[in-house]
């Protein structure tokens, strides 16, 4: 490759990559049920991680092993991340009626998980770290629902 072509190639790669790096959650269209189902499973898997993180942070804080600021920031990040997943999934157009049902099913689980994580965040901000295990208890049902969803559709 000639030096000028190399410079152009380097510039092109840099430009493409800078654009790519700015896009955290690319959303592609779902034209078939199976594509939509695949996207739903991806969303559910991301949600599983957020819910599991908050559960571990909550139990760690309740055991007196984490500071308030660390707990608050960690839970807030997961809440923000899960809200983004929920928003991204909601923005995907369901291709047919079966997909509508799938959308309702996962949407309900994600909304419930976001609400429960918000409760943990509120309790952590109030300094109720000792009580965080109890506040986070409903997340167990969310985690189970997400596991079942992924098992059914994954």
């Amino acid at each position, binding site marked *: 490759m000639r030096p000028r072509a190399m410079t152009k190639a*380097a510039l092109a*790669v*840099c430009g493409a*990559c800078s654009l790519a790096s700015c896009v955290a959650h690319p959303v592609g269209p779902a034209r078939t049920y199976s594509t939509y189902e695949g996207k739903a499973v991806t969303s559910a898997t991301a949600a599983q991680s957020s819910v*599991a993180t908050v559960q571990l942070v909550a139990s760690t804080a309740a055991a007196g*092993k984490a500071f308030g*600021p*660390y707990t608050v920031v960690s839970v807030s990040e997961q809440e923000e991340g899960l809200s983004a997943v929920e928003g991204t999934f909601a923005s995907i157009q369901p291709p047919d009626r079966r997909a509508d049902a799938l959308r309702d099913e996962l949407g309900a689980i994600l909304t419930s998980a976001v609400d429960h994580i918000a409760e943990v965040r509120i309790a952590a901000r109030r300094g109720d770290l000792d009580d965080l295990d109890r506040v986070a208890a409903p997340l167990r049902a969310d985690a189970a629902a997400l596991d079942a969803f992924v098992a059914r559709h994954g």
Partner: protein
Amino acid sequence: MKRFFAVFLGILTAIGGFVDIGDLVANSQTGARFGMNLAWAVVLGVIGIVVYAEMCGRVAAVAGRPVFDLVRERLGPRAGLANLIASFFINFLTLTAEVAGVAIALSLASSVSYLLLIPFVAFLVWLVIWRMPFETMERVFGLLGLCLLVFAVTVWKVGPDWGGLFHTASHPQVPAGETGFTYVYFAIALFGAAMTPYEVFFFSSGAVEEHWTERDLATNRANVLIGFPLGGLLSLAIMASADLILGPAGIDVGQLSQVALPVASVLGRVGLAVVLVGLFAATFGAALETALSAGYIISQYMGWMWGKYVRPRQASRFHLVVLLSIGAAMIFGLTRVDPVKVTEYSIVLSAAALPLTYFPILVIANDPSYMGDKTNGRFLNAIASIYLVILIVVSIITIPLLIITKGGSG
């Protein structure tokens, strides 16, 4: 005794300074997702950086010239410019990730939004570069980075099945639920994190800043041959802690706070405090290195005066580039771009650009007109050549894998 102490301090600094946000994220992510099945990629990367950093240090000590100075001379101005653009871009992404990483570490200790802290961190990075002597700067943050040894303590405290961990590491396989593509993609991420080009830019320029001569070759070898492998063990400890705590909980690492979670859950508040200091030191030290590297590579390419060893007035353009790079990284960080994503892309793109950095080093380390009788031996050349082939293969497959795996997500 004084000499021994200096070498010992250099080794400790090398260990503490080995890990940056790329290593933290990549090792924690892969540990949680692949267990110890990708430990070999860390080992491969550490051997690579040992081989080439030793060459860089030797070239700087013997020829008195840093890497990028020689890259331009060897490749010519045009090919050197292509190299400069790619290297500067990747270095800029890394600088952004490190600045954001420092802000996140401070945020985890204070609960102030990391976005509010980014301008403060950027100012602090510039101030330290402007005011603090080079050696003090390197030592302070390198030694504070040793706080990350708390990951090793965490693994020891968990009391894992050591045989099982070693067996997984020595008999790697693609875990269920993962594809061969994602496995190789994350192997490249680990490899890229260990062999990030800015490390050799900084290492060789630092050698010139510290006026290394042939008398310092022993220090160079000790830092590289002892310090870097021990730093690699630290990387493996981060991976193992994620494997033991985050993996079984089904946690996929997407935030820096999750990297610290295994330590908090096992060692409690003291461990958490220590790991947060370690995260701060590792990211702050790397922010200094990448900001300086931005100034080094541009100044060395353009033939300007550079470095902290000359008065700022003499190296005004070098300091301007450093200042502008920090400012640009601050602005990019403030756009709410995901710091972990930026880290992931920076280490993967580093992997794609590795031959551009390492090939000229190998050529120069074999040139008697620069090196006199200190050229590479046959054994070193054999290893370095094998690595060059690996680097070329990695650079060819990285971008296709980035696209196929959608950045490692599936």
